[in-house]
Structure formats: C-alpha cells, structure tokens
C-alpha cells in the first residue's frame, strides 16, 4: 500500500510491486557545504512503473541528478530508501550495489563517458565483462545487434575521438543496453548535443523503449526534450512539484503542488 505522500505514475490503477521498476520512499539527501546544510532532495516519494519513458524535469539545482543518482545506486540517501524491482537497495555493500548496477541498470551520461582507448565496439562490449554467463559468441552477437540498433555498425572500429557527439551518445546508449538492463538512466543525455542531434537521440531512446519495454528515466531541463516523454516528474528545490502523464500529445497532471507549496 502506498503512503499518502507516494505519487504513482502508471497507466491505470496498477500498484503491484512487480509492476514497479523503481519505488522511492521518503527520500532525502542533504550535503554539508562548509557550515551550511544544502538540501538536494526533501522527502520524495515516487513509484515508477516498468517500461515507462520518463523525464525528470526541472531547473538546475532542482534535484534531478541527485534523484537519478539515488535510483542508479551511485549515491546514498540521507534518509529514506529506494527499491529497484521491489528490492530495497539500502544497506548493501558497494560491491553488491556494483553487481546490481551491472545487471539491472544502464547509464547514459551527459558527457558520454566513453573509454577513449577503446573502440566503439569495445566500449559497447565493456559492461559484458561482468556477466560470466554471456559467452563469447553471444557477446559478439549482442554488441553487433546494439551497434546496429543505434545505427553505428559501420563505426565499430572507430575510437570515441573519431566520432561526432551524436555518434558518441549512440555508442553510450548501445553500451547502456548491451547487458539487457531493466532500467536505463540518462542524465541530461542531450545537454552536450545540438537540438537536432539531441532530438534524434531522444527518438532513438524512445524507439528502443517501445520496442524493448526497458524503463527509461532521463533528466532534462529542455522543454523540447520533455515533450518527447510519456511521463514527467517536475522537481523544484528538491521536491516533486508536478507529475504528468501524456495522453494524445497533452499532459494530464496527476499531481500539481499549489503555488504556496502546500501538499496535495
């Protein structure tokens, strides 16, 4: 049963844990900056259904990246907990979290973060070295498949510095998908790309989301990019201020915080 503060983004009244990719409960994060305490997230509750294409929207400093990092298990909350596929990730060791990330979560970064010494093929192949069960042949097939999905089959031997920004992000998307994760997290995936390339990257991500039912959660502050999502979570000052579901090109808001900041 959801707490009264938990906000759910789902098509219809589905609440079963097995339908949730991510559940965030009472999540808070604060930092100490000198003598000052900075609140990055304040008591956030959120359910994210499997297979959605969700945008975390908001201005800089709103807490998008922090929330994404918590969901990605690369940062730890000050309070609250995160459940991935119904499993609580709090209290796990760094190695356990690394194992969870390797099998469950794919990452796409704003600055692409490809390994400069590896070719596009090797970059895509990289996450598979954690997965002993994936044999050499399957590994080759997967890498080729995902390079094909992102349209870079002809660039397999290219190093990142021989690729354009858009191509690099495509390699990063292929790398995020190759381990067949259930969730792909993308932190400002279009921020370092021009509008046209950014739009194409988002289209590619959405196409993959629809074809594979992999949950995509990406952060952005670009309204053009938000428009391409089918769910949106708007953040301000570390709090959720709006939850939207897109229906027939129109946003329907399941929750909207009143201007004075009172809870719904």
């Amino acid at each position, binding site marked *: 049963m959801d707490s009264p503060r938990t906000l759910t983004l789902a098509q219809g009244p589905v609440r079963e844990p097995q339908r949730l990719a991510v559940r965030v409960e009472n999540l808070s994060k604060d930092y100490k900056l000198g003598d000052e305490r900075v609140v990055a997230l304040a008591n956030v509750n959120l359910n994210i259904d499997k297979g959605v294409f969700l945008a975390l929207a908001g201005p800089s400093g709103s807490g998008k990246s922090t929330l994404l990092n918590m969901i990605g298990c*690369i940062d730890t909350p000050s309070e609250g907990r995160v459940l991935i596929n119904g499993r609580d990730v709090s209290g796990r060791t760094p*190695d356990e979290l*690394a194992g969870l*990330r390797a099998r469950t979560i794919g990452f796409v*970064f704003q*600055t692409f*973060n490809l390994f400069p010494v*590896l070719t596009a093929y090797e970059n895509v192949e990289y996450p598979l070295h954690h997965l002993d069960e994936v044999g050499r042949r399957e590994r080759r097939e997967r890498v080729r498949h995902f390079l094909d999905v992102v349209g870079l089959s002809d660039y397999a031997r290219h190093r990142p510095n021989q690729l354009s920004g858009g191509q690099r992000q495509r390699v990063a998307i292929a790398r995020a998908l190759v381990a067949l994760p259930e969730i792909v997290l993308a932190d400002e995936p279009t921020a370092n790309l021009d509008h046209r390339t950014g739009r194409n990257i988002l289209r590619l991500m959405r196409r993959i989301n629809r074809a594979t039912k992999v949950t995509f959660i990406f952060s952005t502050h670009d309204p053009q990019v938000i428009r391409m999502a089918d769910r949106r979570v708007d953040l301000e000052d570390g709090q959720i201020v709006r939850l939207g579901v897109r229906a027939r090109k129109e946003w329907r808001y399941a929750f909207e915080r009143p201007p004075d900041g009172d809870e719904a």
Partner: protein
Amino acid sequence: MLRLALRNVFRHTGRTALTMAAIIAGVVGLMLSGGFVRDIFAKLGESVIHSQSGHLQVSRSGFQESGSRRPERYLIADPARLEGRIAAIPGVSDVMARLAFSGLLNNGRSDVAIAGEGIEPAKETRLGTSLTIVAGRRLMASDANGAMLGDGVASALKVGPGDRVTLMLSTEGGALNTLDLDVVGVFRTFSKDYDARAVRIPIAAAQDALNTPGASTIVVSLVRTSDTDSVARELGTALAGQGLEVWTWEALNDFYAKTVKLYERQFGVLRGIILLMVLLSVANSVNMSLFERVPEFGTMRALGDRSAYIIRLVLVECLLLGIIGAAIGVALGAVLATAISLVGIPMPPPPNSDVGYIAQIALVPQLVAGAFAVGVVATALAGIPSALRAVKVPVADALRQAI
C-alpha cells in the same frame, strides 16, 4: 584487463615517456653504481689473492692467530706430501709452500724489522699477477740467495736491485743465523703496511737458515675465485683430524670484509636514494594521470566494476609501465656499462695503497635482476596510494568531475 591496461599505459605518450624516463634513469643508476662497486670488490679481492694470500691457505691450527711471534712452532713437517694431496682436488690451479720468519734486515748501516717469507719463486710468479715490480725483477728459482723487498723495506734501507743485504733470524733451536742476500727486485702490493715489512726469499734458503725442512703455510691458487668456499669445505673435510686449518682469502684479509661492508653500506644508501627518486617521480606522474581519470573510474564503477577491479587495473598498468621501463633501463644500462668498461675509469690509489687502477662496470646478473625488480616494484608501489584514493571518491562525485 591486460588489453585495457596496455592501451591506458600508452594513451598519453608524453607522460608515459616521462614516467619511463624516471624508471629507466633509476634502473640505469642502480646498474652502473652497483656494477662499479662490484668491480671494486672484485678487483680488490683479486688484488689481495694475487699479491698476498692466494685463494686458500692451509696451516697448523693456531698459526694464523699466533704464528707471527713464533712461526717455528707451527711448521708443517712434510709440505711436499700435503701439496700433492691438495693439488689433486678439482678446481685447484696451483699449490705452493711458504715458510714465514721474522728478523732484522741490515744494509751495513741500519736495521729494519721484517716479516719474511720463503717462497717457491716459479709458482709465486704465476700466482702473483697483482704484484707490481717497482724496480728490478721477480725472484727466480735460480736465485739461491736472492731477495725481493717490499717497497717500504727498500726505501727504509735505501737499497735496490744489485745491492747486498744481511738477514738476521733465529733458528727453530733458538740460535741466531745470518744470511747474505742479493736484492733482485722491489715490489709493491695494494697494502702499504705489508710492503713496509715484507721480504721474500727462496724457500730453500729460508729452510736452510731456519734449519727446518718444513713450511708454515700451503698456499692454494684456484681456477675460479667463486669456487673458494666449496674447495675450502672439501679441503677441510679431507684434512680433518690432522691439526690443520683451512683459511679462505676473505678470512685471511679482515680489511677486505670491512671495506666491502663499508662500500655496501654506502651503496645501500645510494640505492635507497635512487629508489626514493624513482618512487617520487613515478608516484607524481601516476598520481597526475589517475587524478585526471577519476571520472573514468566513476564510469567504470557506475557500469558495475568493483573498486578492487579498478585497483587491479591500475596495478597492472603500473606493472606494465614498470616492466617496460625497467627492461629498457636494463638494456640501456648494459650498453652503457659495456661502453664505460671499454674506456675504463682511472681510479686513484685506495687508502693505505700507492697503486691506482682502472675501474670498470661489472654486469652481475643478480645486480641486473635487482635493478629490474626495483624498477618494477617501485612503479607498482607508486600506483597503489593513487589507486586507493581514486576509488574512494563516491561514484556520483567522480562522474560530476567529468562535466
């Protein structure tokens, strides 16, 4: 991992070259300084062996400690038979008897106290390759009453080749005996103290003057100096229970061990400085490189790599860097050592000596292996703190550094 590590090593050729230069300099420095010191040890050892003591000496028990005062008490009665037994041992090149005596040498005007030896001239000529003849010639078997004087003795008496001197000594029975000798040559060893008292005459003349057929010591020359300990052991076993002792050249020349200890200590400090230099240079370079790669390590950890994997990767990279750098260092060191040895380094006479020599750089396998190991281990060690620091950065913070 190896492929990734190898590519990472060469991703910044300039920085890699700089790091390698530090490793190469360290390895070359260790090889050259170590080889130089080893050459000094070897030359000093050979000089001791081939000017004074030979490789081994067999004498009556107690002779080496107290025989200088009463050498007649420690005589080997039948030296020829013992020489024959020793000569049959594998590795032995030559065996010769010496008869020690002490007395006064007189030139008609003044006396000098001497420590003399009756020797077998032909065999001693073969052994004494490090004996420098300052004037005249070496003693020959035909010189029945000839004498070779140490440089210091000749100077003190102001005599030289062609001069006649009188040796006064006590016989085994206590009688005073004199011997007129013709000076045939003046010699110099590496030791001034020895040269100030040394007189060498044919053993037959010494036996005649001392009225004994015996000898004080049997000097053994070996084919290879490195066989000293093994032949000494064999000899000790063969002569057990006969009241005889076997002394190695190192035991006979206490100052050699002290000199080696002194130089080893100095070289140890030098090795420590070089190790520190390599460690600091490599650590600085590796640290800079790893600091720049913090976002990359963050990405690796976000993708599921464990911290231990990243530390291993950095260690493998450092090991590769160390192995390649040390290998180049060894090759360069060998070339330089050979070139320097061909030219030679003129050295002044060591303390307590008048004889200078030409030093070279010895290429000793253990030393080369040690320098190589220092290069590799220092590089690997240098990477560990940086790697530990890099993986301590929280993943989110590491990734933020990329933006």
